[in-house]
């Protein structure tokens, strides 16, 4: 017997506060698809993805009906393509990108991740080929997402890779200029990339993963905000410790639904259940925003002093509640601050409350980094590389995943609006202050050594 009040509370989460399963992402190993014949390789990749993920749509629809919880996206993540297409050259990599796109299109999944290179310590010729192919690969395909792991706590920061990535980002933005540089929204550069992340653009199926895995990401900023507001109504003198408790309890409930659906889905499609990512993924809808949670906690203008502390409280409480709810937590597991995809953050940028520097500070206590920010299209590659290096340094030194998904918007200046549409939302172009002042630093190139892991201060 389930208590009526519990039933009503769960229904409120789903129907009034925008709770959903944001993504179920099937990780598929392509390691044994490799072939010397590029045609055969592409055919094997296409067939492998279709055979493993063929039941995904039906299973998701059946579970949505069974639990009444929307599953917003079905996605695929594959083995890093730098390993799979190695030796096939520029044209070969592009053919593989198209094979991935075709498979995603056939399955009706909106994004497929894994056009990826892991170069935190050094780049092979194939890694360089993949990175150089990004402008074509991401402008010619619709659904392919790419990522590069350019830094790790164990290896340091590969500045050569970051500069190459930055040059490619500018070209990719130029190639997708008519869509405000949207191609760059499908690419992310990481420090300490997780191998089981279900969220795009950075999902790939790591080489340490099983052959076919289901990873789940939930979304519930609206539920957390609603819980805080209700608690404050009942007790206006709530302390921050009390607010953390409210968030913990709420995160437990959200994560449990992810765990329930992930396990059942994995069983239905014959895959292993991988992880639940605890991250609260926002969407551009009102009432589905991480920024609005900070506002509910009393930060009136996001970016104002206190924003970092409030975000730290939120991220920590989400982890504590979520960890108890799931036996398999992984991925990024924090609180996302993707600017264009979060109406509260996007509004804070438009109003001038939130700058890149403050956002960077905030990302040191949450996941996943400078995410979905638009910058002027005339920013130079070295400045972009320095911006990326700063964010990755936060991850490397603090033993956490950080990342940059940045969109240089061709022809637009700071303060102008951009619209990417759908879950990608829209935002205002942010000012990059002191652009051009880091060239000499970046051009030294090489690798920033791995940090000391003792003397923590």
């Amino acid at each position, binding site marked *: *017997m*389930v208590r009526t009040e519990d039933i009503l*509370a*769960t229904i409120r989460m*789903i129907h009034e506060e925008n709770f959903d399963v944001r993504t179920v992402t099937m990780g598929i190993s392509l390691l044994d698809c490799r072939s010397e014949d590029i045609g055969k390789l592409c055919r094997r990749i296409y067939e492998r993805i279709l055979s493993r993920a063929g039941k995904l749509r039906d299973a998701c629809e*059946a579970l949505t009906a*069974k639990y*009444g919880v929307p599953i917003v996206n079905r996605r695929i993540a594959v083995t890093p393509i730098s390993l799979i297409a190695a030796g096939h050259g520029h044209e070969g990599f592009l053919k593989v990108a198209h094979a991935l796109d075709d498979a995603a299109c056939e399955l009706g999944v909106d994004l497929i991740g894994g056009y990826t290179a892991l170069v935190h310590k050094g780049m092979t010729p194939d890694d360089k080929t993949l990175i150089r192919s990004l402008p074509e690969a991401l402008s010619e395909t619709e659904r392919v997402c790419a990522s590069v792991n350019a830094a790790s706590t164990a290896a340091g920061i590969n500045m050569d890779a970051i500069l190459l990535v930055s040059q490619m980002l500018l070209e990719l933005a130029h190639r997708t200029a008519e869509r405000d540089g949207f191609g760059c929204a499908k690419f992310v550069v990481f420090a300490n990339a997780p191998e089981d992340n279900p969220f795009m653009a950075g999902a790939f199926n790591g080489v340490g993963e099983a052959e076919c895995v289901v990873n789940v990401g939930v979304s519930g900023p609206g539920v957390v905000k609603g819980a805080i507001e209700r608690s404050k109504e009942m007790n206006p003198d709530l302390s921050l410790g009390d607010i953390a408790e409210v968030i913990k309890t709420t995160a437990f*409930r959200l994560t449990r639904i992810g765990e329930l659906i992930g396990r059942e889905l994995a069983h239905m499609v014959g895959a292993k259940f991988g992880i639940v990512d605890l991250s609260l993924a926002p969407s551009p809808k009102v009432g589905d925003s991480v920024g609005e949670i900070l506002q509910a906690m009393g930060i009136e203008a996001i970016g104002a002093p206190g924003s970092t502390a409030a975000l730290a409280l939120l991220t920590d409480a989400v982890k504590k509640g979520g960890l108890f709810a799931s*036996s398999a937590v992984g991925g990024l597991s924090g609180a996302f601050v993707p600017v264009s995809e979060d109406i509260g953050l996007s509004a804070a940028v438009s109003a001038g409350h939130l700058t890149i520097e403050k956002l960077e500070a905030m990302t040191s206590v949450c996941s996943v980094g400078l995410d979905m920010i638009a910058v002027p299209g005339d920013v130079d590659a070295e400045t972009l590389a320095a911006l990326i290096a700063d964010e990755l340094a936060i991850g490397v030194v603090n033993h956490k995943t950080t990342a940059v998904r940045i969109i240089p918007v061709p022809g637009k200046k700071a303060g102008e609006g951009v619209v990417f549409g759908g879950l990608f939302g829209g935002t205002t172009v942010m000012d990059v202050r002191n652009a051009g002042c880091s060239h000499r630093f970046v051009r030294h190139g090489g690798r920033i050594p791995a940090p000391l892991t003792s003397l923590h201060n």
Partner: protein
Amino acid sequence: MEYIVTVMAHDRPGIVAGIGRAIYEMGGNVEELSQTVVRGYFTIIVCATFPHSPSCEEVKGAIESTGAPGELDVAVRIRKPDEPLSATPPSYDHFILTLFGRDRPGVIYHMASYLASHGINITDLYGRTSDGEFTIVLELSVPPELDPRKLKHDLEELGRSFGMSAHFQHENLFRATHDLRSLAMPGV
């Protein structure tokens, strides 16, 4: 032999004590029971066993005598040993149907008729009106061959025809959100 006893009365402290005393003094033992109060009215259903097999009238009289004259409406039946403990087999799945909307006559009748016509049993039912809004929560035992997609669609449609929103969800969802037991290891 198992005796099924129901008692209905205007609620006051001491009704359960009276019923318990009557059963105890007849040498009986309570095997299972459930009690609820609606709008100030108490109702209880009890399964009791007695070593000396009294008649239903004896049990009824003993319980009635614990209240004021005419206060307790008591009914007693003997459960036949071959009567199944559940109206539906264990293979049936458990769903929760929740309805919200303006109170209108006939909602329960039409919903329950639809469920009955599909062999779906209502195992628990709760409803309340607050500020003209009616909330009904039904626990359902659903034959495994029925497609939840179709049921969800039909029930939502039926709810809409009464101006109510209907939500049809497997009970595991609510266990997941409010039960601390591990999902990986049921029964822990």
